């Protein structure tokens, strides 16, 4: 197996790259940064060659995967397309609904008979009404809150705990790494949904416990990505150089490695949030969770009982849920594709 990170000593292409970047270097720090940039650019060239090998498998790619090059070279060629901004606006709308659903001039979502029952969508009731005359539009708007609470908290916990764990494990390696990998292994032992169901079943069906359960199961994915990236970065020449110059490992970790790990993690947050929202939807659909909390999953389950008479009661939350998850997946896909073209597969 060819090693991509090794042998980045003086080859013609590296010298060329350095000349191109800027020959008039002033301070040592600046020189170091430019060298790092050149290293990264060249490592990417080498990596592209290696990754073009047809025999590579996912495990190889994982072992070889390089982080995105430093920001400077990245943000100049971000092209996201109009669909990306449509997805972003949709998420903005959902977040707006989640924050302000109580203040909006809508009928009380929990009050029956605000309109005639089983009514198809009209101007007064945008999504129609269900069997007991609940206004479906205001229910869907209110349901956004549960969804966004889960999505946001899973990102915070995933990045804060999972990401940090992974970065530290990949940077220091040794026993810390073994422990972190083992913890993620244990968390991944059970299929995520079953772990969440079990936790909620034993802890009790409150919103707080649903949040805890879903946050716990979102940790390993972030930890793995952060670990793989930080492992690859901390094997670069410039880390060794910094260490030999006398920089403390902690300083290198926080000042040099962390910002580079932040990019792939940031591009994963959209996908991570969509996974968490899917899990919450499944829990709510199965009726495991706070019984009085209005959420899209529980609305689908309730609407299914009257699929014949009032299909809008199922379809309204279904379509909104679908668009939200699709928007998040698309944002994640474009973001990671823009940051690292090779990872744009999924």
């Amino acid at each position, binding site marked *: 197996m060819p090693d991509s990170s090794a042998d980045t000593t003086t080859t013609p292409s590296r010298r060329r790259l350095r000349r191109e970047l800027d020959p008039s270097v002033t301070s040592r720090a600046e020189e170091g940064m430019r060298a790092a940039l050149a290293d990264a650019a060249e490592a990417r060239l080498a990596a592209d060659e290696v990754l073009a090998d047809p025999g590579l498998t996912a495990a190889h790619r994982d072992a070889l995967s390089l982080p995105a090059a430093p920001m400077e070279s990245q943000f100049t060629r971000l092209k996201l397309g109009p669909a990306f901004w449509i997805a972003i606006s949709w998420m903005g709308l959902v977040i707006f609904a989640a924050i302000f659903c109580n203040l909006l001039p809508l009928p009380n979502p929990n009050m029956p008979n605000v309109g005639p029952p089983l009514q198809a969508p009209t101007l007064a009731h945008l999504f129609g009404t269900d069997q007991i005359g609940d206004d479906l539009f205001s229910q869907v708007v209110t349901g956004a809150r549960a969804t966004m609470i889960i999505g946001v908290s899973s990102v915070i916990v995933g990045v804060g705990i999972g990401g940090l764990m992974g970065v530290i494990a990949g940077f220091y390696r040794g026993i810390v790494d073994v422990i972190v990998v083992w913890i993620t292994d244990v968390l991944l032992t059970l*299929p995520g949904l079953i772990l969440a169901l079990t936790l909620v079943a*034993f802890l009790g069906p409150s919103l707080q416990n649903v949040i805890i359960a879903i946050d716990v199961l979102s940790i390993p994915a972030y930890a793995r990505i952060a670990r793989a990236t930080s492992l690859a970065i901390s094997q670069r020449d410039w880390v060794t150089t910094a260490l030999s110059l006398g920089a403390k490992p902690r300083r290198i970790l926080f000042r040099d490695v962390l910002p580079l790990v932040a990019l792939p993690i940031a591009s994963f947050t959209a996908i991570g949030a969509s996974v968490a929202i899917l899990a919450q939807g499944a829990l709510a659909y199965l009726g495991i969770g706070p019984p009085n909390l209005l959420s899209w999953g529980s609305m689908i389950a309730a609407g299914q009982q009257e699929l014949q008479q009032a299909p809008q009661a199922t379809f309204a939350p279904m379509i909104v849920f679908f668009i939200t998850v699709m928007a998040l997946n698309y944002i994640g896909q474009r973001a990671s594709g823009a940051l690292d073209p090779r990872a744009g*597969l999924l």
Partner: protein
Amino acid sequence: MLRYIGWRFVRMVSVVFAVTLFSFFLLNLLPGSPINTILGPGAGDAAARRLVTLQYGLNHPIWDRYLIWLGHALQGNLGESYVSSQNVASAIFEHLPLTIELMIIAEVISLGIAVPTAMFCSLKPGGWFDKMVSRSTLALLALPAFVLGPFMIFIFAVKFHIFPASGETTWFTLGGGYSPAIVATPQSLLMPSLVLAAGQLALFARVLRGDLITTLKSDFILMARSKGFSRWYILRHHALRPSSFTLVSLVGLSVGGLLAGALIVENIFALPGIGTLFIASILKRDYLMVQGLVVLVASGFVTVNFLTDAFYTVLDPRIRRARLIG
């Protein structure tokens, strides 16, 4: 290679051990007496309390109790449900075949659709068919079972009456033994399997397409082209095999996703599998049943993953070093 498999085995055993510990302490360390938890709604009965105390040795220290419980569990004795007075292990094995059947059918469907689709896509990457597939798989990934399921019930059962909306058929106890549902009542299993297959299908098609396109860029494909083979022939005879490694490992890893999916699908279509048993037990607060299911599912899942990994290592020698590093 043996060293790698051995290392995986040690990790597998330690993880299973951690899961048993986790599920045991979930039941025993929660606020309130485990008696209340075990007995659930019937906790008031003094005789039952005494019986539970004796049966679970609740007068012993917790580590002794754990070892005793582990010993029983290793012998296949997961206790007896106090809600339904059913033996937990036998209840699980009664419901297991349907879930496995559902998972196998879904896997066959998703591979049967994903592989040819990916091959057609890679014939002309960026063409109209490829673009259409890429968009629809993206949409499929955003359609979880509990969205797709009700939607398909609406279309095929409510509107057109093609399939039954639920699988409540009599086949399950036919003659006291298990008879495969797909033979007895194929239409009651087809819709659930399709819903279950949807997510996997999208994932498989995307991954295989990517790998095929990478393979098709290599020199030996150019060589085959220059010999005059048709594109489709090259795709089938030269490119498919070296592109399928990721897919093979993904199929092994998909067991977990399928299991979670089966759990939802069974509940949507009211099929009597592991998933319905699990949810019903949670709702009935039948904690011993939940505990037994968690231990069993986790052990089975970890074993399947280990076997896939070991098998894969034997198949592809190049993987050994990469995985040892990673």
